[in-house]
């Protein structure tokens, strides 16, 4: 019997390592899940004289998409959001993270603007409050202003259709 132990340990180790291969160490669980979204008061990207605050968005289900014109993988994600918002009744707010206004505005003109409004976070302070560490990041916030989901890295069509879209639809039905 005891001669089988090394084999058993070996397979145990293989199982552990195999699972480890498929886990992404860059996906750090957000401590914000289930908690109220951090407060913000930011100016609109296209209009520095208008401020939008978190509390104005209470009562709406919305996606908060953190992006920047310098962010390479945002380019992959962007058309997916443009397409999604064209076909579905969903509110997406952009959080333009550590960017400059002219570059960000030009970027949206070139690639399309899926946002109900883009908020301008020039020094990344709001980004820190949201625990942003890898742009793009996307949060889903419910009608009570609670963070329900966080995606780090670009949204793939698969994740959008199978995870985010059904979740948003369900949250929109909540009162």
């Amino acid at each position, binding site marked *: 019997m005891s001669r089988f132990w090394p084999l058993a340990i070996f397979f145990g180790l293989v199982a552990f390592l195999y699972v480890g291969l498929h886990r992404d*160490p*860059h996906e*750090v*669980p*957000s*401590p*914000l899940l289930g908690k109220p979204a951090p407060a913000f008061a930011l100016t609109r990207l296209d209009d520095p004289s208008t401020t939008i605050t978190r509390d104005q968005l209470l009562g709406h289900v919305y996606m908060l998409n953190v992006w920047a014109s310098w962010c390479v993988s945002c380019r992959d994600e962007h058309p997916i959001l443009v397409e999604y918002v064209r076909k579905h009744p969903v509110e997406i707010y952009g959080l333009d993270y*550590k960017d400059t206004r002219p570059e960000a505005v030009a970027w949206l003109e070139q690639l399309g603007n899926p946002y109900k409004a883009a908020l301008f976070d020039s*020094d*990344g302070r709001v980004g*820190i*409050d*949201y*625990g942003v*560490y*890898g742009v793009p990041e996307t949060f889903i916030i419910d009608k009570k202003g609670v963070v329900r989901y966080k995606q780090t890295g670009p949204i793939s069509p698969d994740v959008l259709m199978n995870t985010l879209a059904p979740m948003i639809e369900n949250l929109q039905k909540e009162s």
Partner: protein
Amino acid sequence: MQMMKNLIFAGLMFLVLGVSTAPAKEALPVGDDPVVQARMMRLATVLRCLVCQNQTIADSHADLASDLRNQIVELIHQGKTDSEIMDYMTERYGDFVLYRPPMKTSTLLLWFGPLLLVVIGGAALYRSAQDRQRNVADETELTLEQKRLADQFLNRKSSES
């Protein structure tokens, strides 16, 4: 004791900085005060940079790391204690920012796993050592039959010579 010292120190810092920098709060450069700088670096060496995960915020050149260093300085200027600053970071980035993970049920295996392995290994070693000793003992102990044969053989030998 250390805690007390820190508190008193933080209180003094608050008083000194609160008064002396009030008119020019925003313009205060990051690296101007060596005491604040030293305290910031001490905190930054126990915080993980989430962009380049195996570096501390003190080591990393990532944008986020320098933002967070500035943020720590600002929190120090606001008179926050070390533990308040740590809470500020974990509220936003989770326990993962801490190089020394907190002890709780989900991290028990992390803290005591190595000890568990040592215990299992020690037990296995002890058992195999005992087995070996028993085998050696079995082999050296002669049965009555073997003893009789050995005596016979030895006696014959001695009588022949």
